[in-house]
């Protein structure tokens, strides 16, 4: 492909402006991708510190370091920040960096909208964090914001609602941009079924985003009018029903969990074939499996609320529909394993994270299946078992996939190889500590420890201490990650254009670091 040299020439004519203005006014997909990734890294640490406050308080029974109201504020803010500030923006950042390069497009379809959707985020994040200093404290009713409890939030309440609105608007604009890019900007010959799986999973994720973020916006708007404008959507005194909030919230909330994991599936489907030196096994079944998961995500929401008093028919429907999701997910896990089968495997850091993803995400999937069993869920509901489950899929799932992606594409972004030895240290410390951190929480939940309490019964002490040790080890291990990224940005061994021996796809045909403008002349895809 001759485009690589062509774009390289052009890069000299259009150097990015320097200084703060470059980042404030940029419409370049690579700059915006970087901004998203840096923002999410900062938020990962903000949310992580909150998690460590939670774990420190749970080191032993009784109230040690923080008062229970603040503890609850920590669990609430940790959830909101990790979901909307860390995981989702990280995947949007990856989408910005990679989708145009993967489909041979010069940039995103709507570059100015792209700038706007990023720059809303810091304001929304700041607004949310500012609630920590407000009269009455930060929101403390859980990230799910169930009424009537959430309506008791103090001055922070409207700030919570508006920051959720802003985060939603940002996601919707980002998603529209991604869909338009994928549908309209593909290079000639790049048919839908030739697209890399990361692009496919993001196309489906973007549709999920524009379908459900507005529903969340509606739900929190109803909370706002219930509190300040005398409506009674969720107020039984006025004829409303608090359970209805749970229905509306989880109608958003369940697709939301797939919004956080489908792009991770895409990343893993790029990384594993590279280091197995084999094409992905069952490409089209991967596409169909992703689409099926997305469809099913709309009809399973009430499995989050088995204990609200649903009739038997409802329990059964949501139980079976939920279990059905295991089928397409199983197809994916099978395909990843089949891709590795008899491949010429090497285990560089991205591959290590990808393999850990497959194993640990599957553990999280299995505990999800346990939770899907309605009668068993009456025991597990709102216990630490649930906490263990969703951290297995979100930390050792989504977050590990993000790590895999960063290590995988970092040489392409910076032009330098990262420090492989430190990368491996980061991996091994993370994978060990993440299990020390979350696995005991399964036992705690099954033994009856409820979530969202600052205190607990003495018999839970030992496993809580194990978990807290794991939490601090995991938190410290992430400092290695920051150092590796920093070091790689500053310098290191020069990366080749292809970077990895087994790497396939358009992004590996442009030089490393990727020039400021790539594919201004569309490449020919055979």
């Amino acid at each position, binding site marked *: 492909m001759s485009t690589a040299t062509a774009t390289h020439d052009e890069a000299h004519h259009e150097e990015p402006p320097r200084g703060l203005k470059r980042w404030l006014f940029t419409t370049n997909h690579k700059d915006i991708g970087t901004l998203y990734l840096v923002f999410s890294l900062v938020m990962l640490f903000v949310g992580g510190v909150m998690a460590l406050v939670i774990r420190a308080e749970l080191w032993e029974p009784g109230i040690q370091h923080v008062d229970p109201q603040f503890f609850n504020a920590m669990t609430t803010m940790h959830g909101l920040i990790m979901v909307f500030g860390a995981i989702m923006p990280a995947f949007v950042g990856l989408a910005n960096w990679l989708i145009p390069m993967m489909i041979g497009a010069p940039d995103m379809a709507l570059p100015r909208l792209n700038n706007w959707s990023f720059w809303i985020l810091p304001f929304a994040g700041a607004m949310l964090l500012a609630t920590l200093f407000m009269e009455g404290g930060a929101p403390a009713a859980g990230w799910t914001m169930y009424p009537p409890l959430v309506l008791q939030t103090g001055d922070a309440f409207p700030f919570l609602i508006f920051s959720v609105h802003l985060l939603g608007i940002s996601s919707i604009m980002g998603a529209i941009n991604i869909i338009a890019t994928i549908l309209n900007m593909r290079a000639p010959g790049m048919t839908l079924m030739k697209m890399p799986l990361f692009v496919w999973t993001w196309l489906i994720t973007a549709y999920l985003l524009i379908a459900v973020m507005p529903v969340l916006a509606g739900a929190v708007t109803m909370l706002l009018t219930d509190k300040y404008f005398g409506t009674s959507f969720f107020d039984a005194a006025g004829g409303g029903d608090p359970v209805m909030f749970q229905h509306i919230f989880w109608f958003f909330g369940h697709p939301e969990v797939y919004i956080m994991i489908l792009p991770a599936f895409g990343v893993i489907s790029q990384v594993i074939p590279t280091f197995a030196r084999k094409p992905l096994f069952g490409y089209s079944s991967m596409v169909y499996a992703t689409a099926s998961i997305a469809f099913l995500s709309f009809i399973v929401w009430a499995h989050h609320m088995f204990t609200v008093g649903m*009739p038997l028919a409802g329990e059964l429907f949501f139980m079976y529909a939920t279990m059905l999701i295991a089928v397409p997910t199983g197809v994916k896990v099978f395909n990843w394993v089949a891709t590795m089968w008899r491949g010429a495997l090497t285990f560089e850091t991205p591959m290590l994270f990808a393999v850990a993803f497959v194993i640990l995400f599957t553990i999280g999937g299995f505990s999800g299946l346990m939770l899907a069993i309605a009668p068993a869920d009456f025991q597990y509901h709102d216990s630490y078992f649930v906490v263990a489950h969703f951290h297995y899929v979100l930390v050792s799932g989504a977050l590990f996939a993000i790590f895999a992606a960063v290590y995988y594409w970092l040489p392409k972004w910076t032009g330098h190889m990262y420090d492989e030895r430190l990368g491996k240290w980061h991996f091994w410390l993370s994978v060990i500590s993440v299990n020390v951190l979350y696995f005991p929480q399964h036992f705690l939940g099954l033994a009856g420890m409820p979530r969202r309490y600052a205190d607990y019964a003495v018999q839970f002490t030992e496993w809580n201490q194990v978990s807290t040790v794991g939490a601090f080890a995991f938190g410290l291990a992430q400092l290695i990650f920051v150092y590796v990224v920093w070091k790689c940005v500053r310098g290191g061994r020069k990366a080749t254009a292809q970077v990895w021996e087994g790497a396939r796809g358009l992004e590996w045909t442009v030089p490393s670091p990727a020039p400021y403008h790539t594919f201004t002349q569309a490449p020919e895809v055979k």
Partner: protein
Amino acid sequence: MGGAARRDEVRAANRRLVRRLVLLPLAMFGFGFALVPLYDVFCEITGLNGKVDTGRAAQAPQGVRVDASRTVRIELLAQAPGGGRVAIEPAAPFMELHPGELRVAKFRARNLGAEAAVVRAVPSVTPGLAAQHLRKVQCFCFDEQRLAPGEARDLVVVFYLDPALPEDIRTVSLGYTVFEVRRQARAGPAGAGRG
């Protein structure tokens, strides 16, 4: 095709697509609100959340055969959250009756405050599927109740169980949550004047 022409074409295609895509979030925002009446309709048809027919008086059970072959236990509950100015409790914690039999349940309400209180009771029937078979001929929950300062009064429900009540339901809980009416019209879009 020239580069500029292709760029313009892509730009126009993007605009068309975005115009269509924007409709979806707008529609879904509306759908979130549409879920509110849909939820009520769904519950009314299926009787799932125990709020069926609570706003209307039923006909007295004329011609309804009393099914003496089975006895159903009715558990009575009442609570008045918030402030503690009004207290309410059932006169008896439970009663036993045959389906088809007309009975009276009493709840003792007291205004503990120094000002008059206007209260509205919101009923709830558990299991939810029993709600449509619990027929209220007369109920204090149909209207707002005014309690003078210090007044204690028996609030009355006259009801019967439809003999069509499924055989496997042997216990039905009838609960009331009593709210003080603060504003004149605290009517929400979610079923104003219900309960």
